[in-house]
């Protein structure tokens, strides 16, 4: 299939458009459509990943126009990997989403648009990952962002305000990116990534190029919520519907990170980004700050989703540190952490969703042993995810830290090493705080009260373990953490090693 790289995008886009039309005829079809489309996209991107690893980078020229005139879609190992991760995670989350969405978005007529937005968001992500053209990337970026705003706004009473903040910040980011791209375009006359990579070395000491790079990096840092530009994230993740935050948290920031990696290491090249103009080291230090700040803030939170949101800020920091190291080991750590964190955060947010559905709240101070007795498996999965976040081997979380630590030592950057290691202690503090409550919290009242305002948790079974459709994805992810942890060498050697660009060695 010559269009393979673009295929997931097209499928998702088509379904997103079809969903409203179809659901005019048969109600309730939206979710089925969405799951089917995402499943298709996930399987295609998996196949693509295999093909890319086997046969090398895939290209397709939109409408048959060759680049640099036409828009080119490129799947190199990095893109294929990220696409595969995002699509499969979203698939898992969508399976879990049904009950939670029914409960948290009482107005059934809005479900159609919810699922359509999910499809659009994922379509945008796939576009960002697959495209070989920077302006096209901007368009996809905005498509995904707009649907993200919509998804966030579908949450509880306060969500629209969070969504609006997110929108303002996100637009600033995107516009910065566009402005920077303008500078590059003026200097090089091209928007195609490969083309730019070829032209830039001749002009990259020109001030406009430098300004352009800085602006683009700043813009994407906002999108990936790199400290101190993370302001929009906690409120957005907290107030969004649980399944929406479980969709956004693992994927959204990762895409931003992907664009940064693409821009810095594949277009400008590590040589330039790290030595000539030390953008990466700035990113690295901000990320280190993010790790500490996020973890510390997470300790202070009383609400599970909010805690997870701040821990996301910290986890993005890990990826940032990997980028900041600008070395193969750093890249390995960053990319592996994209995978690990996607699994962990999806798992944790899904559990938070199950709690919200079952208990009507996800407030840490209200957890107690009754919760565990009521839903032992879900809680066990949460424990697995927490341990992985803390970085207990052989769970996945340990190994991304392992590679990052190796990279930090090789760069003999002891502060990064300290940050990476200390942060896992901080994680331990705030996760064991929750686990302690879940396993030994004195069972005062029953484990369930009515939920916060704006949530109708009445419908859906209230007692007993979560329904299979919510339990299976959670357990699946928990198992994935162990498997990835044990087989991370395979991932690293078979996949990530292949995506280390020339000139980084």
């Amino acid at each position, binding site marked *: 299939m010559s269009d393979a790289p673009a295929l997931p995008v097209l499928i998702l886009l088509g379904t997103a458009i079809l969903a409203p039309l179809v659901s005019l005829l048969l109600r309730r079809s939206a979710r089925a459509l969405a799951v089917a489309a995402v499943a298709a996209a996930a399987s295609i991107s998996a196949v693509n990943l295999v093909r890319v690893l086997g046969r090398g980078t895939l290209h397709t020229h939109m409408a048959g126009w060759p680049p640099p005139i036409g828009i080119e879609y490129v799947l190199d190992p990095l893109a294929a990997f990220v696409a595969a991760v995002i699509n499969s995670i979203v698939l898992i989350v969508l399976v879990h989403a049904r009950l939670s969405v029914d409960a948290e978005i009482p107005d059934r007529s809005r479900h159609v648009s919810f699922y359509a937005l999910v499809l659009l968001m994922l379509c945008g992500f796939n576009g960002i990952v697959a495209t070989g053209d920077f302006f096209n990337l901007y368009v996809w970026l905005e498509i995904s962002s707009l649907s993200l705003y919509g998804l966030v706004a579908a949450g509880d009473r306060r969500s629209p305000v969070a969504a609006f903040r997110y929108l303002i910040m996100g637009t600033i980011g995107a516009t910065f990116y566009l402005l920077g791209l303008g500078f590059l375009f003026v200097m090089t006359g091209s928007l195609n990534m490969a083309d730019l990579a070829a032209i830039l070395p001749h002009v990259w000491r020109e001030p406009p190029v430098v300004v352009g790079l800085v602006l683009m990096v700043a813009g994407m840092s906002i999108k990936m919520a790199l400290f101190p530009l993370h302001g929009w994230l906690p409120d957005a993740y907290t107030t969004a519907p649980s399944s929406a935050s479980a969709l956004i948290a693992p994927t959204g920031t990762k895409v931003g990170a992907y664009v940064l990696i693409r821009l810095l290491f594949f277009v400008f090249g590590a040589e330039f980004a790290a030595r000539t103009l030390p953008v990466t080291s700035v990113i690295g230090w901000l990320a280190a700050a993010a790790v500490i700040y996020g973890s510390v803030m997470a300790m202070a939170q009383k609400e599970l989703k909010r805690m997870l949101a701040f821990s996301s800020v910290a986890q993005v920091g890990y990826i940032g540190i990997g980028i900041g190291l600008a070395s193969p080991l750093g890249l390995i750590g960053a990319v592996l952490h994209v995978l690990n964190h996607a699994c962990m955060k999806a798992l944790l947010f899904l559990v938070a969703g199950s709690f919200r559905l079952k208990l009507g709240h996800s407030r840490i101070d209200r957890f107690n042993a009754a919760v565990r007795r009521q839903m032992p498996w879900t809680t066990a999965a949460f424990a697995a995810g927490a341990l992985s976040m803390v970085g207990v081997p*052989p769970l996945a979380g340990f190994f991304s830290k*392992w590679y990052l630590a*190796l990279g930090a030592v090789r760069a003999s950057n002891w502060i990064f090493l300290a940050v990476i*290691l200390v942060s896992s202690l901080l994680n331990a503090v705030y996760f*064991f705080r929750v686990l302690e409550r879940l396993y030994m919290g004195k069972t005062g009242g029953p484990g369930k009260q009515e939920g916060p305002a704006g949530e109708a948790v009445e419908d859906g079974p209230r007692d007993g373990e979560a329904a299979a459709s919510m339990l299976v994805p959670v357990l699946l992810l928990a198992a994935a953490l162990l498997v990835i942890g*044990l087989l991370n060498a395979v991932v*690293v050697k078979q996949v990530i090693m292949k995506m280390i660009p020339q000139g980084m060695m």
Partner: protein
Amino acid sequence: MTQMTHAAGFSSLAPLLAVLISLAAVPLILASARRPNLREFWTLAASFLKFGLVFSLLPHVLAGREATVVLLEIAPGIRLALRADPFAVFFALVASGLWILTSFFSIGYVRGLDDKRQTRYFASFAVCLSATMGVAFASNLLTFIVFYEILTVATYPLVIHKETPVAIRAGRKYLAYTLTAGVFLVAATVVTYQAAGTLDFRAGGIPGLADVSGGTLRALFFLFMAGVGVKAAIMPLHGWLPTAMAAPTPVSALLHAVAVVKSGVFGVVRVVGFVFGPALMKGLGLNGVLAVFAAVSIIAASLIAFRQDNLKLRLAYSTVGHLSYIVLGSALLSTGALTGSVLHLAFHATLKITLFFCAGAIYVNLHRENISDLDGIGRVMPWTMGAFATAAIGLSGVPPLNGFVSKWWLGWGAVEAGNVLPLAVLALSGLLNAGYLLPIVRRAFLRPGKGLDGKGEASPFMVVPLILAAVVSLLFGLVPNLFFRFHDLARAVAAAILGGEGR
């Protein structure tokens, strides 16, 4: 899930099985939560099987053949691998052997208190043992870390078993100490990997480290010590151990006298002998530093032990002291000292477990924890207190008990190393040991007791194991090489560390 390499025939799988067997028992234990007898049967079956497997490795190591299992590659260039060298087998034998006794004892204990959470208790116990085996057999630092961390996490439920506020606080403290230690260990490992390019333990030290600057190596060594020293309870890193006595007595007995703390000192010896190696240690004068820390811990811990009225706390501090014996021995780096420290790893285990068993029996039977309440219990619980007395004498290092043997070698090693100070330390601490343990015996037998009418011995489930433990201690005192050739193993380890491989 993994590709095995059948390097040395069947026996190469034995270490892996030894690790997995108790792990395999966990689901069975959980499944049979409703039927206690079946559940305990699984535990016992697992413990016996495990012991058998480890024992089957003994002849190989004595013949100088080291069984190895290479599991999957856990990170590029680093394999998750198990290797049954003499030291590993030695430690594994001690741990798995004493697990059998502890299992019996635990049954008596938890049933005696008809505890609510027995299933979780036995399950976590099994996991801990698996992790301990893993620590013992780990053939490189990363594997070591993996099991070390698992051990940390798996012990947590046991520490907070009672779920009282005290226990929960103890659990927090325990995690705070051990997780931090784990972080230091990871840091040290990362640095080592960068410096040496390999993480495989190598008797006599990892060669690649030789050409690293002294400063880095010193820093590295302290990172390592911070990592393994916590579980080894070297002062000032011992704080968690007394607090962790909030755990049920069998847990204190096996984990805080054998498995956990011993995997700490095991780690110390591994680092000293198999990562740095004698040459580097002496070259950088690190062994001196270590020895000082150890000596201070020995004396200080013994002194503190005097002030404890709670029996378990006193035993805990005595454990701190005796762990430092082993550290001291490894720091002296002479044949005798190493032999002594390795032997002490086993012999202190048998003695201390006896004492903890006694404490447990007393607690279950009379619900007494404080030494001041123990007057006259020797009359109602003669067997128990007899065992207690035996072990107490042994810990003070009096012949013919095994405590004497290891201590003798330690002292001899000190002389070998041409250093008399350790000798003095050992002698003094011997006196102190006698000083804080024997009075308990005197109270028990010579003082008149109150409110003991109609009380008898604890259930045989508990008494038999503790008597067995005492007897074993005595036998080893008479014939150190009995059954397990502990003595030869220890010599082999010492020779390996000091003289490179073999010999």
